Each structure stands twice: as C-alpha cells, then as structure tokens.
C-alpha cells in the first residue's frame, strides 16, 4: 500500500485506516516485514484507530515488526494509557540571550 519503507506521518496511518475501513474483511493482518521504520506518531495514530475499527467490527493484528519497532509500539501503547502522568520540564532556568 505504501511506496516507502518509512512510515513517518500521522497521515500515513490515517490513509491506512481509510483503506482498512473499506475492506470487506473483519480480521486484518498488518505485516510490517517491508517496513524499516515507523515513527512514534504513526504508531500513536495506528493505536487510536484500533478502537475505531472495533466500532466497525474489525480487528487488526500487527506482525513482523523488526527489533527496533516492536519496543516502540509497546512504548506508545503504554504511554497512551498514562497520558495524564506525562511531565515536562521548565525552561525557567535557561540563560536568556538577546540577539
């Protein structure tokens, strides 16, 4: 479906969702064997549409993630469950420079 082996953009995931939602099948396998790279954003968007697909009585199974992508997908899955606990650091200690 994709002409590149990098899946970087959220739009790529949205395009995938559109494609899947129009398939007649209810069980769909996503084979990442040809994908060298997928971004955190792509996976985040992918996870978000798993629940949307459930409403369409569809289910996706992800297979053949390489050794770099598999942990990233897990991190994204776990992070989405802890949205409220994600913290940021203040930049108030940054030295201000005026140019």
């Amino acid at each position: 479906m994709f002409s590149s082996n990098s899946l970087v953009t959220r739009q790529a995931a949205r395009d995938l969702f559109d494609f899947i939602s129009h398939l007649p099948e209810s069980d769909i396998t996503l084979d990442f064997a040809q994908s060298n790279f997928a971004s955190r954003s792509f996976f985040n968007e992918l996870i978000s549409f798993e629940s949307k697909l459930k409403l369409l009585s569809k289910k996706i199974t992800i297979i053949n993630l390489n050794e770099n992508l598999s942990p990233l997908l897990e991190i994204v899955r776990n992070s989405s469950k802890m949205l409220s606990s994600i913290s940021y650091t203040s930049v108030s200690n940054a030295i201000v420079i005026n140019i």
Partner: protein
Amino acid sequence: MILICSHFSIIERIKELIGNLRYLESTDSGSTIEIQAIEFTTPLTITPVASVINKKELTYNYNGENASYLQIIRFPEGIDKLDGLSLQGTYIPIIHLHLKNLDRNTLSTQLNMLHSKFLELLRLKVIADESFIELITNNTFGFLLGEIMDNIEEHSDAENIYLFAQYWPKNNSCEVCILDDGVGLLGSLKKAGRDVSDSADALKKILEKGLSSKTEYGDIMRGMGIKYTRAAITNKEINGEFFIMSGSAAFLHSAKSGENFINFKEYFWPGTLVMLRLNKPLATFNLYNYVK
C-alpha cells in the same frame, strides 16, 4: 555582507547566523549579495541562508575560500530528488522540497519517501564510520527525523522545506538541519485558537507544557515530539545539541553547556528550523531509555 566563520561556540554561530539573516532580509529581492568569507560551515549556518537566498531570488559572486564546497553541497538551490544521487563525501547535499499545492496525501507520501531515502544515504554513504552508526543506531536517526518530519506535515503549512546533513569524522559528530517556511510555532498555535501572545510565549509553552495546535482525544498523544527529541539528543551518552528557532525566539539545549532561551531583536524567522547535533557515544545507545 555574509560572513561565516569557524566559531567553536554554538552561541557565536547562532549570533553570526542571525546577523547574516538580518543582512539578507535588508536586501532587495532579485539583487546581488556580497559574501565576505566562508571559513567553515555547518548545516545550521548555511541552510537558512540558502532558503532566504532562494526565496528572494538573490544572486552572489563568491570565489573565496570554500567556494567549491558551496557548489558541491548544491548551495543555495538544493536538490529535489535523491534517487540516483552519487555521494562522495561526508554530507548529504542541501535538499529542497517544494510542497506548494500538494494535497495532504501526496505531502505525506513525499515526506515518508524522503525519510526513507535520507536514512539510507546517511547510513550507507555519509557516515562511513560504521562504529558511529552501530553505536548511535540507525533507529535513533530514524526516530529523530521522523519526529521533525511529522511536525512539518501536521503543523507547518509549509511551501518549502530544506534539509542538510554533514558528518565530521575527525570529531565524530553529525549535524542535521531541517527547516520549513510555514506558519511557524506561533502561527500554528494561534490558528488553532491557543492562548499564546508571541513567539517566545509559544515556544515556552511548547517546551514546558507540550502545547500543541492539535487536540488530544482518546489515545492520541500530542505535543510530545520536541520533548522526546530533546531527551534523545541532550543526554550524557549522545552529548548533543538541540536547537529550535521560530519567529523571534529560539531555544538551545546543549548537553555540555545547558539551556539558553534566545530572543531576537528586530528579526523574525518565518517558519520553523530545527538543528540536531549528535556525537558518537561510548557505548551502544538505547533510544528507548529516553523515550518512554
């Protein structure tokens, strides 16, 4: 006049860059600029200069030091195709993608392909030191470039993006600069109705609160790209530098020298620029220790 010196300090390079950009801004479109000297360039110091020269259709005559280097990195026009590119150095030439009038799907496809090709070139051609790639891991480059490219696609409304990478084998470091000419951080947030007053306020809220122009809903996480990029670059292993500039403000986080918030007086960079400097770690870098 344009002057690019071999400053060691990144702060001095940033000051010099703003000076050069101010000079270019004061120049009439279509006119000829003067270049005093180019002693040593980095992606940060040369890429935004290229983009402004192209935008204003400026010309220059320069036969001094490093004139041939400017030619081989395709300054200032850049290239728009990576297929069939023959590389013989430790750099990827300036890449200039024209995005005007592209629909969302086509833009997404172009960025995905650029990412894939760029990683391949970086891995196979540019960073000839295999131990550098093995230790930093191609996954790290992929992750960082992916974060920036997705931000361009989601937020920038850009008509042009530029990308330039250089590797220095002598000091085992690699610098990548990516910029767009879109609406910038302030423009993107204001367009989405976010409460931001100026460039500095926008940048601070993005850094401190993950403020995003996009709305979180369900499992969708927004506003985390810059956080993760900083964490991946500025830890003690990579020991690198993260720089972002948009509008009249910029932020620098250097693992060695700490954080600087930079305000530009009477200068405004339209769009957003990100620079990443990565240094060879001593042991294999696990990106996922910093991205959780």
